C-alpha cells in the first residue's frame, strides 16, 4: 500500500450557484480524489437522489487531475485547506437536428430559437424554422453569400429588417417582411470587394460590414425611403446580374479604413454601442470607434484572424486564427500583451468562434478539421469536441457557427446545418425568457 495514495487533506467546497450550496466547513478527503469523487461528495452533501455532475475549480482553473497531483504540480502544501469552487458540469451538446443544403454553408445566424438564417455559397439566404422547414429562400445575391447576421425579432418590428447578409458580389442585403412576404428591403452598396463579415449592434439600430477591400463600413439598419446609391445597371460595362439590382441601394454612414488587406471578421461590443472589433488578414485585431471612425487600438498576433466574437460578460475578444488556435484578447490591455490566452486543440484553421450568451467562460469554436469544440476558458483543454455524426462529413470543413441561447448552430462544407442543444443550466447563465 502506498502511503501517498492514502494521504488525506482538508478541502473547503464553495459555489456561486445558490441552489447547490453546501455548508462552508472544511472536510477531510483522500488526496487521490478526482473530479468524480468530489462530485459524489457534493451530491452526497446535497442529498441528491439523482446525482448532478459537478466540475471543480481550484484557483480559477479546472481541476483535471487528482487533488494530490494538482498540489504537487504547483508545489503547494497539503497541510493547508484547499478551497475548491464547484459548478454544475456542462453536459455534452446533443445534436437535435440537421438541415441539409445543396451547397456549402458559409454562415449561420439564429434570429430566435425557432428561426435560423443560413447563408450559402449558392448565393441564396435561407430561413429555416425549428421544424426543418425552409420558410423562405431569399434570392438576390449574384454571388456566394459569405455572411449573415440576425436582427432580434423585437427590433425587427421597428425596422422590419430580420437579417442582413453579405456576399461576394460586394453588396449586403437587408431582408425583411414587406407586404406579407419576406424579401430584400435594401442593398448596402459601396464595398469594392467581397463582403466577408457583417454584424448588427446590440440595440439593433446599426450594422457593420467587413470586406476584402480592407475597409469596414458602418450602416444604419433603417430602411431608406429612397435609393441612396446609383443602381448598378448604370455601370458602363457589360450588363451583368448584380446583387439586389432591383432593390433600393443604401449608402454607408461611415467607412473605417486602416486594415491592410482583407478584413475577415467584425463584431460589436455588446456593452458599448459604438465600439467595434475587427480582425483581418494583416494579423491584427483592431478596435474602432464607429462614431468618430477612429481606429482606437490595434493588437497583433502571428496569424490571420478568421473569426471574432466578443463577450460582454468577461469583456474578452475571442478570435479564431489560421494557426489552429483560438486566441483570447483583452482589448482593454495596453501593455502589449493583448493575447491573454491561446487555446490550441484544433487540427485546422479556426474559422469561427462564438461565446455562450451571457457567459464569461464558455466559448465554442469551429474549424476546418470539421470539429466544433466547446471551451471553458478556465481550462486549457476543450470541454467537448463535437465531430459530425456522418463519416463523410468528417473531412468537411466547418465554416460557420452561432450560439443562440441553448442552441449551437454549425454549418460548413458538408452543407448540413447542425443544431446542437447545450445544457443551459450551466453556471451563471441568466434565466432565459421563454418566447
Amino acid at each position, binding site marked *: 500500500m502506498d502511503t501517498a495514495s492514502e494521504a488525506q487533506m482538508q478541502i473547503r467546497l464553495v459555489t456561486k450557484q445558490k441552489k447547490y450550496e453546501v455548508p462552508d466547513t472544511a472536510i477531510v478527503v483522500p488526496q487521490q480524489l478526482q473530479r468524480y469523487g468530489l462530485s459524489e461528495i457534493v451530491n452526497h452533501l446535497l442529498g441528491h437522489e439523482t446525482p448532478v455532475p459537478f466540475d471543480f475549480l481550484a484557483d480559477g482553473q479546472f481541476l483535471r487531475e487528482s487533488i494530490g497531483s494538482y498540489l504537487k504540480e504547483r508545489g503547494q502544501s497539503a497541510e493547508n485547506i484547499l478551497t475548491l469552487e464547484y459548478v454544475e458540469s456542462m453536459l455534452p451538446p446533443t445534436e437535435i437536428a440537421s438541415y441539409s443544403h445543396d451547397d*456549402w454553408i*458559409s454562415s449561420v445566424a439564429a434570429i430566435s430559437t425557432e428561426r435560423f438564417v443560413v447563408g450559402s*455559397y449558392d448565393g441564396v439566404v435561407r430561413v429555416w424554422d425549428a421544424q426543418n422547414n425552409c420558410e423562405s429562400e431569399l434570392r438576390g445575391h*449574384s*454571388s*456566394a453569400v459569405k455572411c449573415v447576421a440576425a436582427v432580434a425579432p423585437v427590433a425587427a418590428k421597428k425596422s422590419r429588417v430580420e437579417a442582413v447578409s453579405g456576399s*461576394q*458580389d*460586394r453588396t449586403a442585403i437587408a431582408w425583411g417582411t414587406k407586404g406579407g412576404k419576406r424579401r430584400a428591403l435594401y442593398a448596402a452598396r459601396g*464595398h*469594392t*470587394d*467581397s463582403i466577408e463579415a457583417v454584424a448588427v449592434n446590440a440595440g439593433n439600430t446599426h450594422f457593420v460590414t467587413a470586406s*476584402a*477591400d480592407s475597409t469596414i463600413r458602418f450602416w444604419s439598419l433603417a430602411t431608406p425611403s429612397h435609393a441612396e446609391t446609383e443602381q*448598378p445597371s448604370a*455601370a*458602363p*460595362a*457589360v450588363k*451583368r446580374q448584380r446583387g439586389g439590382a432591383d432593390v433600393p441601394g443604401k449608402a454607408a454612414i461611415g467607412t473605417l479604413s486602416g486594415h491592410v*488587406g*482583407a478584413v*475577415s471578421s467584425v463584431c460589436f461590443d455588446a456593452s458599448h454601442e459604438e465600439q467595434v472589433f475587427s480582425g483581418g*488578414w494583416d494579423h491584427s485585431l483592431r478596435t474602432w470607434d464607429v462614431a468618430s471612425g477612429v481606429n482606437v487600438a490595434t493588437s497583433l498576433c*502571428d496569424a*490571420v484572424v*478568421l473569426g471574432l466574437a466578443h463577450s460582454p460578460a468577461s469583456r474578452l475578444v475571442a478570435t479564431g486564427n*489560421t*494557426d489552429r488556435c483560438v486566441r483570447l484578447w483583452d482589448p482593454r490591455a495596453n501593455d502589449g500583451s493583448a493575447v491573454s490566452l491561446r487555446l490550441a486543440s484544433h487540427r*485546422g*484553421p479556426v*474559422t469561427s468562434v462564438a461565446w455562450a450568451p451571457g457567459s464569461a467562460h464558455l466559448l465554442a469554436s469551429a474549424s*476546418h478539421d470539421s470539429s466544433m469544440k466547446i471551451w471553458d476558458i478556465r481550462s486549457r483543454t476543450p470541454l467537448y469536441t463535437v465531430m459530425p455524426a456522418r463519416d463523410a462529413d468528417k473531412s468537411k*470543413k466547418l*465554416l460557420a457557427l452561432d450560439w443562440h441561447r441553448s442552441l449551437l448552430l454549425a454549418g460548413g*462544407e458538408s452543407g448540413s446545418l447542425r443544431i446542437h442543444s447545450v445544457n443551459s443550466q450551466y453556471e451563471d447563465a441568466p434565466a432565459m425568457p421563454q418566447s
Partner: protein
Amino acid sequence: MGAAGRSNQRKRSAAHRDEVAEEFPASSGIDVPSEPEASSDEDDNVEEGDFDATLRMMADDQGFGSDEAEDFAAQDSDEDAEDEDEEKSEIHSSDIDGASSEEDEEDEVEDEEESSVSDDDKNPLLVRAASRSTEGQETVVDSDEEAENSVLDGKDIDRLTINDFGRDLGSWKEYRKTLPQIDAGYASDSSTEEPVNTIGNVPIEWYADSLHIGYDIDGKRIMRPATGDELDKFLDNMDNPDVFRTARDEINQQNVKLSEEEIDIIRRIQGGSIPDADYNPYEDTVEWFTSQTMQTPLTAAQPSKRGFVPSKWEHNRVMKIVRAIRQGRITRGAPVSTAPQYFDLWADAEAEDSVGTGRRQRERLAAPRTVLPTHAESYHPPGEYLPTEEEKRKWLEQDPDYRKRNFLPHDFGTLRTVPGYDRFIQERFQRCLDLYLAPRMKKKVSHLDPEELMPKLPDPRDLRPFPSRESLVYLGHTGRVRSISVDPTGMWLLSGSDDGTVRLWELITGRCAKIWDFKDTVYRVAWCPSQDSCIFAAAVGSRVVIVIPSDLCDDNRLLVSEELVKAGFGSAAAAETDDDSSLPVSWDMPTSTEQASGMHVSIAMHRTVKSVTWHRRGDYLATLTSEEGGSSVLIHQISKHKSQRPFRKLKGAVQHIKFHPTRPWFLVTTQRYVRIYNLMQQSLIKTLQPGVKWISSVDVHPQGDNVIVGSYDKKLSWFDLDLSMKPYRSIRYHSQAIRQVQFSRKFPLFATASDDGTIQVYHGMVYQDLNQNPLVVPLKILRGHEIRNSLGVLDCQFHPIQPWLLSSGADGTIRLWM
C-alpha cells in the same frame, strides 16, 4: 702528478677496490680500504691514505718487490710527478696484456704456499679469526715478513687466502695482491676487540636452554663455558682479590677483568669528566693565523699582488656604471611603477599554453609508453595464441608495414631452446633511423566537437514564420495540376490542369468558385501582377487565353482590365502587317460563349505554349512554345495586341523564361545555362553556369540580385549575380528531379518542388549589406503530395501576402501549407 692524472688514478683505484670488495664480501680481514668513493673525494686525508694503498696494489701488480712498493708508498707525494708517465704506461700495458711473466713466478710461489697450507686447516679465515680472538690484539701483517717468511703463520694466512681465491678465479689474477696490514691506531675500528660471539644483539637469554651461547665468525657454535653454581661464584668472589674489577661479559659468558686504565675511564665517566686522561681541555691556543704581520711569517711566500693593487675588474665594473650614469641610462631613484600591484596568477599558464613564446626551453617530449608484452610474446604461449597455418600464410603475404604484429607467436617449449633474436640489429637500426628521421613531435590533441564543424546556422524555430504544415487541400481536378497562380490580393487561386480546366478557388476556404473548361491541356496559368486590373493568362494547348474573371473585381478594375485587353483590337491588324508577318501569332477574339465566361483575347500560336510569364507592370506577356530556334520565345504587348520576337537565334532548347523583377532584364534558360538579356539595350548581360545537366526552373529574388536555379538532376543552385557566374551555393537535398523553384515575394523564403513528392522550404535571407553573404537555411520538408507516374509536385507558389505556400501535384490536388 697533475690533477687530471690524479683523479684518473683515483678512479681506477676506486674501481679496483670495488671489484675486490665485491669478490670478497666476507673477508673483512683484508684491509682493502672500502670507504665509499664520495667520501674519499671529500676527505683529503683519507684520500691520501687510500692513494698510498692503491699505489701499493699497483706496485704489487707490476712485480715490484714488496720493499720497493713500501718505499714507493712512503715517498712524498711531490715525487709522484716524476714517475707519473712511466707508471701510467705500465698500468696500461698490464691492463691490456693481461698476464705477464711475473704472474708465472707468483704462481709458483702460490703453489708452494698452498701445499704448506693444506695440512693445517681447511679454512684459513677461521684460523685467523681464532688467532685474533685469542691474541686480543690487531694483526699486523708486515710486508717484510711476507716476503721472507714462507713458514705457515697465523699472520700470513691473509695473503694466502687471497692467493687461493685468485688462482681459482683465473682470469682475475691481476687483482691478486697482498696487502700489508695497516697499523690501526687508537681511533681505528679494529682496535676494539671484536666479540667472539657473533650473535649480535640477540638476547642471550634465547640461548639459555642450549648448550652453546652463540656462533663465532665462521658459524661454529661456541659452547657454553662451564659455570659453577652460586656457591662457587660466592667462593670465587671471596677468594678473588680482583673481584671488584671484574665485569661479566654476558655475550661471551665470561668474566673480564678490567685494567687500571679502564677503571680509570669508568671513574672519570662517573665523575662527569672527560674519559681520556691525556686530553687537556685547557690547552693554550696556538694562533696560527693572526692579523699581525709577523716578523718571521709562517710561510715564505710573497704576499699576493691583489692584496695591495686595486682591482682592474672592479674598476671596469664601476666604470661601466659610471658611464651609464653619465649617459643617463641610470637615474637616481627607481622609476615608480604605476601598474597596480597584484599577482597575475595566470601569467605562467598563458605562457605555457603558447609553446615557444613563453619559454625558450623546448618542451620535453615524453617517450611513448611501451606496450607491455602479452601472451603472444611468450616463448611458450597458450595454444590459442599460436597462429594457424592460414594465419601464418596471411601474415607472410602481408606487407611488413601493415602487419599487426611484427612477429609470429611461436612455441619453443622451453626457454633454453629460444634462439637468438635474428632481427635484433635490423630493428635497432630501424629504431635509430626512426629517431633520426622522424623526431617525435608533441601531438596536440584537439578536443573538437564534431558539432562545432557544422556551419553555424540559426535554429529554424527562430526563422518563423514559414509554411510548416498542410492546412487545406483543394480537390476537384481530375488530371495533373501543372500550374497554379495566386492573385495579387491573395484571396484567389488559379489552377490549370491536364483535365483541360482552369479552376478558380477561394483560397482560404478551398471553395471552387469558377471552372473554365478549355478541353485542352492547360500548361500554365498566370495572374497579371498589376493591382489595378484583374486579368489572368492561361496557356491552353497552342494558344494563350486572356481572361477577366468579372465576378472578382469591382466596376473600376473591370473597366481598367477590359480597356487594357480590348484596346488592341482596333490596331491589331495594322500591327501585324507592319511587323514581320513571319511571326506565327494571331490575336483572335473569342467566340461569344467564351466571352461570356470572361475570355477576352486568344493569342493563337503554331506550337504548344509551354510557359507564360508576365512582366511586373502587367502589360507585357512572354510566351515560350515548344518549337526550336528564336521564335520559341515571344513577347506580347496586351494593350496593343502586338507580338515581337526578341531573339532571332537561340542556342539550344529553351526551358524557361522569366522577366527580371526590378530591371529590364529577361532570363532565358536553356538546358544548361541561364542567359540574362537586357531588353532595352538588346544585349546579353550574363550567362549563369549552374553546372547541371538539365535546368527545370529559375526564379529571381524579389530584390533582383539573386537567382535560384532548379534542375532535373536534383540540384538547386543559388547565384549571386554580383558575385560570379558560378553558383554561390549548390544544394542537393531532393531525391528526385526539382520541378519548380520559387521565391516568396514578401518573406525571406524560397521553396523547391520535386518529383519525390516533397516540397522543401528554405530560409533565404539576402542582406542589404553587400559584404554579407546570403544566408540559406533549410527549414522544412513538406510531404503530402502523392507520386503518380513518377511525377510528384509540379508547381509551387508562395502566397503574396502570407507566409503560406501552395503546391500542385500530379495527383490532381492543390495543397495549402501554412
